[in-house]
């Protein structure tokens, strides 16, 4: 918990970062670069929202893939059957709706899944993902099955193509980070952190553990749904095995861990580092080696840096600062700390 830097510095940093993001397409107009940036922002959103349940509360969920898919399919199906819009800026207005649909679906799913503890919960989320992949494939009369589902094609093309999607993803990423920030500083956030440390104790002192976990689950689903919708429109054609892909949740989890689960900056940092690296690697290396390396990096991060970059760096800074001032970090254990004070 490093709360020592002044707030305006943090705020200033955010504004600068945001300005950079907005200016990015103008600074780096090549469409290849924008594509990478867009996908990175996608994972900033996914990792931040995954972190709300996975990092704050310690409940590993692999359901993001399912909600990503639900968002993508919802948007596609609405555009196909309900609201006929030609490709343009109009469909973007449906993105929050897609998120909402995912969130609503998440409520009963979370209701049931959160009745269990960690390991079984993770299993339940894996099951949720498989179910939606199955549904997407089998309900072919609605979803087009493995033949996929098409979106209206946007009216803009060429070098300009990525730009609107970039900004759409930027907005979603912003929303994701803001939601994570709001949760973190709220009573719900404190409760989630307590759940991570000692769930039974948290419950014993009045934290409504199931409710809080459900809130986190639904919020994550909301963001994942929106991301999926933007992604679906971006690719203009979605297939079940690509939008309901376990690697989406796994990737988000890995990035959150790398950066520091439980922090706000962590998932963002993790996404900024890993997504471009992952994309680059994918270009140069064949499928099998890619998997081996991916697994290896994953293992490396979790086993050797379980707290992630941000907390580890923070701890390093703290200990350097303390050593410089020559004072120990905490009162030595032998010292009876209360005899005098308590006697008052």
């Amino acid at each position, binding site marked *: 918990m490093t709360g020592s830097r002044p707030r305006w510095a943090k705020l200033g940093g955010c504004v600068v970062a945001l300005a950079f993001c907005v200016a990015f397409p103008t600074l780096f107009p090549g469409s290849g670069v924008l594509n990478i940036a867009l996908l990175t922002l996608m994972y900033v959103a996914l990792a931040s929202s995954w972190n709300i349940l996975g990092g704050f509360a310690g409940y590993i969920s692999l359901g993001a893939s399912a909600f990503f898919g639900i968002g993508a399919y919802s948007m596609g199906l609405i555009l196909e059957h309900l609201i006929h819009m030609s490709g343009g800026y109009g469909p973007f207005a449906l993105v929050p709706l897609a998120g909402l649909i995912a969130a609503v679906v998440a409520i009963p799913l979370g209701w049931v899944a959160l009745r269990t503890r960690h390991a079984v919960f993770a299993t339940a989320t894996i099951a949720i993902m498989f179910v939606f992949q199955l549904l997407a494939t089998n309900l072919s009369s609605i979803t087009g099955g493995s033949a996929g589902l098409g979106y209206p094609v946007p009216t803009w093309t060429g070098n300009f193509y990525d730009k609107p999607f970039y900004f759409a993803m930027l907005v979603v990423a912003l929303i994701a980070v803001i939601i994570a920030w709001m*949760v973190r500083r709220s009573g719900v956030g404190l409760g989630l*952190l307590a759940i991570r440390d000692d769930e039974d104790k948290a419950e014993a*002192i009045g934290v409504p553990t199931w409710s809080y976990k459900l809130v986190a689950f639904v919020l994550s689903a909301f963001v994942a749904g929106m991301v999926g919708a933007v992604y679906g429109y971006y690719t203009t054609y979605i297939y079940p095995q690509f939008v309901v892909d376990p690697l989406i949740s796994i990737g988000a989890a890995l990035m959150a861990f790398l950066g520091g689960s439980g922090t706000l900056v962590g998932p963002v940092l993790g996404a900024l580092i890993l997504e471009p690296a992952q994309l680059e690697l994918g270009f140069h290396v064949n499928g099998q080696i890619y998997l081996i390396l991916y697994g290896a990096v994953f293992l490396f991060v979790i086993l050797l840096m379980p707290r992630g970059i941000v907390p580890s760096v923070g701890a390093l800074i703290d200990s350097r600062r303390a050593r410089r001032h020559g004072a120990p970090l*905490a009162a030595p254990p032998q010292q009876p700390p209360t005899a005098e004070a308590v006697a008052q």
Partner: protein
Amino acid sequence: MSDDTLLHVQSISKRFGGVVAVNDCSLTVRKGTITGLIGPNGSGKTTVFNMITGFVRPDDGAIRFNDDTIAGRTPGAIYRMGIGRTFQMARVFTRLTALENLLVPVRRTGVSGFLRGFRGVGQAERARDMLEQLGIGHMAEEPVGRLSYGQRRLVELGTVMMVNPKLVLLDEPAAGVHPRVVDGLARYIRSLNETGISFLVVEHDLNFVMDICHDLVVLDRGRHIAQGPPAEVRTQQSVIDAYLGD
């Protein structure tokens, strides 16, 4: 239930598989008192605690707190009724700071909690005061994981006290505590008691118990064998037998 009885435990039992942990046990805690719960190892003290605080459901019997039935409620519900508890191995939230630990039970909830953050008006000050009183005010911003065991115990106690409980169950508060500090701890508990909080204390340190308890309940093999003022109880033959016997 008589007027000054705060907690009334009546004939509760619990078996785990083939083992009978608690067998037809009864006890009373009167308002404003510090009652000790003692007995040899394995006499069922912690199981009784677990039943009172809702972690374990009694197989038989009844538990009443101020005329309300407790048995069968969840730990959270019992906590909200005004019963707090500490654990044998101090349970705290290690990744939160001491201050945050104390704020968990009184965090701002609901929509305003979302909009304005979890630090309720005045609560942070109350928490800091509490930590000062406990002698660990200087550790307020430290993650509890860095604190010593004795300090964690104090954080745990502070967390319990933040909601002004009427009854606090202490599970071996003196265990693992430096002998010099035990006196201070006893005095702290007594001072809290003087503000009207009742205590039920499980403890092996008999000096500690004799020092602060108004009332003693002795358990042996899951059953109560005596209840009364310490001076009386310690002379009862059944008690002596329980401690010295087979």
